[in-house]
Structure formats: structure tokens, C-alpha cells
């Protein structure tokens, strides 16, 4: 076909423009000329003009003024104009444009044209951009063409029908019969079209699927013909006869054999044959094998065949071609749940793929490796995963970190190993660790009390060496800071290290002053410094000065804390411990709310802090008699149980719907400031305040008031409390157990505390 001169000249002109501005100028001129031409009568150059416009459109410039011209061209009797007109329709018109409806009539006429090439233009356009209305209008025409035309048109009509079914699902019924008969044709194109159509019909409608199951023997027959027959030059690709058709048939067989014993049996032999006979040196062969494997794994195949399929995937994993390895891993991912052992055999190769250069392959390898971790291979797998973490691309880091944490939690051979792993992850990728995992870590560290000193030493060392990864694991460290001082005795795991109070304060100060610290990190550091004041005997002044600096900090949160801490220092020296406890709880609540961390678990660490502060003891707390039986399920250690009981304020409190006996518990705090009201809980419209009154040297009365500002009542509301062993608790009866809506009334409850031994 001869080239279109005007079009090529224009393209040349546009390409020779040296700057964007020049190009725009050329295009504007050309568009103006084209517009003028469109307005003129038929001048024989219409197809060239439209082609020019389409080129301009492809470059990204607006071309909507050509839409009507497309409609006119499609109606033209000249084939050259029709061709370009239809092309323009496919490029410029889509079903969202109104002009698209105008071409429906032209398409209808062209579908009945005597010339098959004109028919094909119409079919192509309908299949590309036909809207639902157009499809409904023209479906009967398509059906007619499916039955009575030559193979050239039939194959196109079949794919057009596929598009129609995708747009208007109900019309599937119309094509079922025709589709069935098309399978018997000799022409590969027609059979291919028929298979695609049947696949589409079966995917949409399960009844149709049942009906088409009867075609399985026919499909098997066709496949056999393709696989066994000799060389057919027309359809051969690298020794495989018509791979496109083979792949489509396999896909249809997959759909038909799923969950059906009979159909699956009928195709077993065929699949085995294809799997063994297909040449896998080229991509083509591998494409067919891949489809076969997918089919075998999806239908109810016999075990021998399944093993064969998994072996093929294993072979794929060893292939040099990255693409093959990638799809092998994708397929293995699908079956790792069901055929776990089979996949385990290839673990070595999969782990090697972690070191591949390609990010897609790495991602797949990561997913698979995490799925393959088990109790027996945890140590070696973890080594691989940790080395992967240090070199993996940034977008995979947080996924890797969470995966490692999960795996470590499930299969950790020992506590120490677990903590080591966690610390390793934190030092390598602390900034990428997801926030939700932090409470788990805190809980874990809290649980392993015998390793506290070891943990703390390690954290301290890490903190000294690299402050950049502070964001997430700073809290872990700081919550345990109080143990640092008590842990300065020689530890079985680490060499003796002389860490003085000054050193610790130095580190904290560095954190506070580092410009890389997040505000939340600084908050934690400040709180930790505060808490240290209860343990440190010599450097209290230094702590005071650190804290008071932040009294004028820009960050409101930090400033508030610093000011309050300062106030504490000034007023309640002798009660510092109590106050610290109270404040710490309050602060922790705020932290938790603002950091959005998972509440119950965070509560655990906070409570344990409280307990530590109050008693400095490692012994588990005895639950107070006031505790109800609706404790949330918590992990085994008693400290945690009590912790969970003591603080579950933020977990799952819902004003509506009300469940009877829904309780929430709060921390019982000791003396804060005389008669001062302190809001300890405010969430979901429920507010609880407490006020303290010191009765005697060892006695304290706390009044708790709860109010509800939501739109509905809360019934069955109870307050519960727990205290350390050394303190006695009497809870008086509450004034009521339902909180009316909108703060209509409040519920109050008095609690008397007695601390006869004046334990700190």
C-alpha cells in the first residue's frame, strides 16, 4: 500500500521542530488546516486529513473536533475512508462520548456488507469500543454472523461476541448454541475464537458451565490433535503447534474441570501427555507448560500428575530465564498452602532468588520464603531473611520486617534468640518497622524478665552506636530503662561494662537534642528521663535541668509534659514516686491514643512500668478481688494478665450496641494533687475523671466520675480497679450502672485506699 504523502510530510515537519514551542506552532497550523478541510465538501483528501489528526492526537494534543468527521467517514462508500474513519472512531470515540451512538447505524449496515473486509472493520470497532447500548442493538447481527458466514468473519464475530458478553452479561444466552457448534470447525482462528467465547460464557454463568462440561472430550480431542500431529507450517511456533490455541484450550479445561471429578478424569491423560511431551527450551514451550501446570493444580487431578506439575515448577525455578523463575514462584505461592512439603523441597532455590537483582523476583521470593518458614528451618531461614533485610529495596523493608517478626514469634527456638533477632531487625531497619508491631515487641521484652539486663545492655550499646533508627524502638528501650541501673552487675551474657548514671543521661540527652528525632521519640525520652529520677540518687539536678529546658519547647506535647514534670519536682519531692506513677499512666494513655498503637498490649507495658515504679519488683501482681471474670484473653504470664486487667481502657469500648456486662477498667492511681480533678479516660464519648483526697498518712479516697456524651445510653457500666499487693482497696457501691446519653447524669464511685506500710 502506498504511503500517504500529506501525512508523512506533516510528520516530518513536526519531527523537525527543535523545541516544544515550535512543535506546538506546527501542530496548531496543521490543525487549523485540517479543520478548514473538514468543513469543505468532499475533496478526496479526507482520509489523509483524518490520519493527520490522529497522529496529532497520539502526540497528546486535543482532537475532539475530529469526532464528527469520523462519523461521516465511516458512512462513506470508499473503503480507504471507512478504514481511517473506523480507526478514528476507535481512537477518538469511546463509549462515554455521545457521538459514539451515531455510528451504530453505520456499523449495522456495514455488518451486512457484501465485502468481508468492510464487515471486519465494523466488527473490530464494535469489539473495541462498543458500549452496552450498541451491543444490545447489534447482538442479533453478531449471532447471525456466527452461524452463517465464512471463517474469516466467524472468528471475528466470536471475539465480538466475547466483548458483548462482557458488556451485557445477559446476552450470553444468545450465543451459547452458536459457540458450541463453532468448536467443530477446522479453522484454527474460528476454534480459538470459540474457545475464548466459551471461556467467557462459563466464567459468567455456572449453568452455562454445566452445559459446556459435555465439550470436554471434544476439547481433549482438539488438544491431542495439536500435540501429536506432525509439523504444520501455518501454525507452528518453534516446534509447538499453535501455542495460542493450546493455551486457551488448557485454560478452558481448567475452568471446566474445577471441582468436577468426571471432567478432571477425562483430561488427566491429556495433561500428562502435554506436560511430558512439550519442549521447554523456548519461551513458547514454557508458556504451554505453565498453563498446563496451572490447570493440573486447579482441577481434581490424581496425585501423580500433581507431583509432575510441582516438579515442572521446580525445573522452572532453576531456569536461567528470570521470567520463568518469576512465574514459577508466583505459581508456587498459590499452592504453598496445600502442597507445603512439595514446595519445601525447593526452599534452597527460592532462598537463592532472594539475592536476585530484579525487584519483582525478590518480592516473589520474599513472599514464598516467609510462607516456607517452619519450626525446623527457622534458624537458617532467619539468617537468610536478616541478610536480605540489610540489602533489600526500601519498598520491601517493612514487609520483610513484619514477616520476620511473625516468623520469630511463631517459631522462636529460644527467648534469647528471639530477642537477638528483634534487636537485629530494629538496628537494621527500625525506621521501617510498622507501628502495630511495636506493642508486641514491648510485651515480649517485658515477658522475658531474666533477660532484661542482657536486653538492656544490648539496646544501650546499639543506641550509643547509631541514633538514626530511633523512631520505633526507642520506646522499648526507654520503658525498660529503669532496669539499666539495677542491671549494672556483671551479666552472664555480656562482659562487664561500667555504665554510670551520667552515661545514661548523656545518651538520653543526645536523643532529645538530635535533630533526627521525631517528636514522639523526644516525648519518650523525656518520660524516661523523668522516670529515671525515681531511681537515680545523685543526678536529680541534672534531670531537672534537662526537663526544664523543654518547658519552653515549640512542640505543645513536650512542653506540657516538661512543665508538669517541673511542677512535680517542685511540689512533691516526697511523693515523687506516687506522682510519677500517676503521670506516667496518664502520659502513656495519651501516648497510646496519639500514637494509635494497639491498646491492650500497650497497656501491658505501661502497667508493668507502673508496677516497677511502685514496687521495683519483678514479682507478678496479685489480682484484686474486685476484678471481674470478663478479662480479655491475654498471654500466659500473670503479670500480663493483671496488666491486661488493669488497663484495657482503650480496647473495644462501644457506646452502641450495648452489651450487658461490658466493663472497662482503669488504672487506679494514687495521690496526684489534693482535690484536683484528673481526667483519666476520654474516648468514644465516655469520660472518666478522678479526684483524690488524702485522708490520713496512709489512707486515700478517690472519687471516680463517669459521664457519657454520646447519643445513646450505656448500660451495665462498671468500674474495676486493681492495686499492688501492699495496698488495700475498698470499692464502695457506685451510684448507678447506666450512663444516660448526652451527659444527663453521672455515675460516681468512691474508692478507699489504704497503704499501711507506706510502701513506695
Amino acid at each position: 500500500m502506498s504511503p500517504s504523502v500529506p501525512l508523512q510530510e506533516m510528520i516530518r515537519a513536526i519531527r523537525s521542530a527543535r523545541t516544544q514551542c515550535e512543535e506546538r506552532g506546527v501542530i496548531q497550523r496543521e490543525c487549523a488546516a485540517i479543520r478548514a478541510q473538514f468543513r469543505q465538501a468532499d475533496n478526496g483528501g479526507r482520509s489523509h486529513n483524518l490520519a493527520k489528526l490522529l497522529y496529532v492526537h497520539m502526540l497528546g494534543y486535543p482532537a475532539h473536533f475530529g469526532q464528527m468527521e469520523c462519523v461521516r467517514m465511516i458512512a462513506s462508500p470508499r473503503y480507504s475512508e471507512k478504514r481511517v474513519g473506523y480507526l478514528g472512531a476507535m481512537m477518538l470515540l469511546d463509549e462515554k462520548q455521545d457521538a459514539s451512538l451515531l455510528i451504530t447505524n453505520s456499523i449495522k449496515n456495514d455488518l451486512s456488507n457484501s465485502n468481508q473486509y468492510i464487515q471486519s472493520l465494523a466488527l473490530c470497532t464494535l469489539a473495541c469500543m462498543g458500549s452496552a447500548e450498541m451491543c444490545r442493538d447489534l447482538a442479533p447481527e453478531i449471532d447471525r454472523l456466527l452461524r452463517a458466514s465464512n471463517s474469516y468473519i466467524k472468528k471475528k464475530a466470536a471475539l465480538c461476541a466475547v466483548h458483548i458478553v462482557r458488556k451485557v452479561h445477559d446476552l450470553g444466552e444468545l450465543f451459547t448454541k452458536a459457540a458450541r457448534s463453532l468448536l467443530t470447525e477446522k479453522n484454527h482462528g474460528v476454534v480459538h475464537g470459540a474457545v475464548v467465547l466459551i471461556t467467557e460464557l462459563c466464567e459468567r454463568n455456572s449453568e452455562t458451565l454445566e452445559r459446556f462440561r459435555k465439550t470436554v472430550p471434544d476439547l481433549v480431542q482438539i488438544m491431542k490433535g495439536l500435540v501429536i500431529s506432525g509439523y504444520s507450517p501455518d501454525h507452528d511456533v518453534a516446534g509447538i503447534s499453535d501455542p495460542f490455541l493450546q493455551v486457551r484450550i488448557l485454560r478452558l479445561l481448567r475452568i471446566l474441570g474445577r471441582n468436577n471429578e468426571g471432567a478432571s478424569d477425562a483430561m488427566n491423560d491429556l495433561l500428562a501427555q502435554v506436560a511430558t511431551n512439550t519442549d521447554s527450551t523456548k519461551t513458547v514451550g514454557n508458556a504451554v507448560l505453565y498453563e498446563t501446570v496451572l490447570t493440573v493444580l486447579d482441577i481434581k487431578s490424581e496425585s501423580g500428575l500433581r507431583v509432575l506439575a510441582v516438579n515442572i515448577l521446580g525445573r522452572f525455578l532453576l531456569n536461567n530465564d528470570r521470567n520463568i523463575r518469576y512465574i514459577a514462584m508466583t505459581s508456587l505461592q498459590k499452592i504453598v498452602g496445600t502442597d507445603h512439603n512439595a514446595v519445601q523441597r525447593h526452599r534452597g532455590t527460592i532462598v537463592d532468588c532472594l539475592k536476585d537483582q530484579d525487584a519483582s523476583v525478590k518480592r516473589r521470593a520474599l513472599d514464598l520464603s516467609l510462607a516456607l518458614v517452619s519450626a525446623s528451618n527457622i534458624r537458617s531461614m532467619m539468617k537468610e531473611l536478616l541478610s536480605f533485610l540489610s540489602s533489600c529495596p526500601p519498598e520491601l523493608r517493612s514487609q520483610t520486617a513484619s514477616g520476620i517478626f511473625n516468623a520469630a514469634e511463631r517459631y522462636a527456638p529460644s527467648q534469647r534468640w528471639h530477642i537477638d533477632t528483634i534487636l537485629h531487625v530494629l538496628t537494621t531497619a527500625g525506621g521501617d518497622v510498622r507501628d502495630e508491631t511495636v506493642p508486641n515487641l514491648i510485651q515480649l521484652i517485658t515477658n522475658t524478665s531474666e533477660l532484661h539486663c542482657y536486653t538492656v545492655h544490648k539496646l544501650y550499646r546499639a543506641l550509643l552506636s547509631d541514633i538514626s533508627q530511633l523512631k520505633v524502638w526507642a520506646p522499648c528501650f526507654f520503658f525498660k530503662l529503669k532496669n539499666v541501673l539495677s542491671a549494672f552487675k556483671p551479666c552472664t551474657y555480656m562482659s562487664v561494662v561500667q555504665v554510670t548514671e551520667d552515661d545514661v543521661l548523656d545518651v538520653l540527652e543526645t536523643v532529645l537534642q538530635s535533630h533526627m528525632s521525631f517528636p514522639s521519640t523526644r516525648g519518650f525520652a523525656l518520660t524516661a528521663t523523668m522516670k529515671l529520677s525515681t531511681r537515680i540518687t545523685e543526678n536529680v539536678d541534672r534531670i531537672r535541668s534537662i526537663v526544664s529546658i523543654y518547658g519552653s519547647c515549640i512542640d505543645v506535647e513536650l512542653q506540657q509534659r516538661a512543665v508538669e514534670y517541673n511542677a512535680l519536682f517542685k511540689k512533691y519531692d516526697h511523693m515523687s514516686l506516687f506522682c510519677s506513677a500517676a503521670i506516667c499512666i496518664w502520659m502513656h494513655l495519651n501516648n497510646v491514643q496519639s500514637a494509635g498503637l494497639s491498646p491492650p498490649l500497650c497497656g501491658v507495658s505501661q502497667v508493668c512500668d507502673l508496677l516497677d515504679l511502685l514496687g521495683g519488683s519483678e514479682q507478678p501482681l496479685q489480682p484484686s478481688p474486685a476484678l471481674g471474670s470478663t478479662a480479655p484473653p491475654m498471654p500466659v504470664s500473670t503479670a500480663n494478665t493483671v496488666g491486661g486487667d488493669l488497663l484495657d481502657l482503650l480496647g473495644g469500648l462501644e457506646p452502641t450496641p450495648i452489651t450487658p456486662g461490658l466493663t472497662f477498667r482503669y488504672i487506679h492511681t494514687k495521690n496526684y494533687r489534693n482535690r484536683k480533678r484528673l481526667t483519666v479516660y476520654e474516648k468514644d464519648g465516655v469520660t472518666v475523671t478522678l479526684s483524690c483526697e488524702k485522708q490520713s498518712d496512709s489512707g486515700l479516697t478517690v472519687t471516680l466520675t463517669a459521664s457519657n456524651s454520646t447519643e445513646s445510653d450505656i448500660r451495665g457500666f462498671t468500674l474495676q480497679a486493681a492495686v499492688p499487693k501492699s495496698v488495700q482497696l475498698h470499692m464502695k457501691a457506685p451510684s448507678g450502672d447506666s450512663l444516660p446519653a448526652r451527659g444527663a447524669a453521672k455515675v460516681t464511685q468512691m474508692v478507699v485506699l489504704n497503704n499501711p506500710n507506706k510502701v513506695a
Partner: protein
Amino acid sequence: MQFMLLFSRQGKLRLQKWYVPLSDKEKKKITRELVQTVLARKPKMCSFLEWRDLKIVYKRYASLYFCCAIEDQDNELITLEIIHRYVELLDKYFGSVCELDIIFNFEKAYFILDEFLLGGEAQETSKKNVLKAIEQADLLQEVRYTPNHSHVWQI
């Protein structure tokens, strides 16, 4: 297949075929993002990538990237074969095709594509038949052309 894009190494679009209805703006956005993503890949990397909820299969032939977006159930390897088949068709038609051929004869590249794929699926699996159909259509274009016109056809 949802769409096929051909673009140069500088990111210039040479052909775009969309089989799903999208607005012009969306098409431009998708094209821009995808071109950027694919061009950022290194030479030896995998031909498949996941992008949004689609699978992208791409292959580079000389200075042109052929990029297809397929759905979840589609076979990636056979899509590579489809791309290869299309390149072979172009090669046979233009005789040792290069990017310039596709630039200056873009409408013919579309016609060939439309003879090979229909509605996103392969319609003819025989190379010979596709080429024959195009030849016939071209003849039809010539024959129907009315002779009393001032433009001169070049051979």
C-alpha cells in the same frame, strides 16, 4: 488484554490501543506513569511487573518498548509470544521494520494490529493468514480509489 502501548526509549508514544473504556485524562495519566515505571527498569530485569491491579508484560525491541496490560487470569508467557508475533508481522510487512517505519506509517501499524488482535484477544493464530488479509485490504483500498484525483500515489 486491557491495553497495549508502544513507546520509544525517550518516552514518546508511538502506538496506543485501549480495549477498556477510559477517559482521555485517565489514559494520559496511565500512559505517563507506566512509561516512567517501565523505562526505569534495568535491561536484564524480569519482563513482568505488577502495577496497580494489573499485570504488565513488556519487551524491548531495538528502540521500542512493547507494553501490554493483562488481567490476572491471563498467561504472561503467552503474552510475550503475542508481542513477539506482532513484531514479526510488522517485520514481514515493512521488511525489516524499524521505529521510523512505525512513526511514519502509524495507521498501518494499527491496521496490522487490528488484524491480529480483536477486543484484546488474538483472532488469528497463523502468521500467513494475517498477512494475507492485510494484503487484500490494502488492495481494496487501492482499487476503490477513484482515479480522477490530483494526488499522485508514490510506489
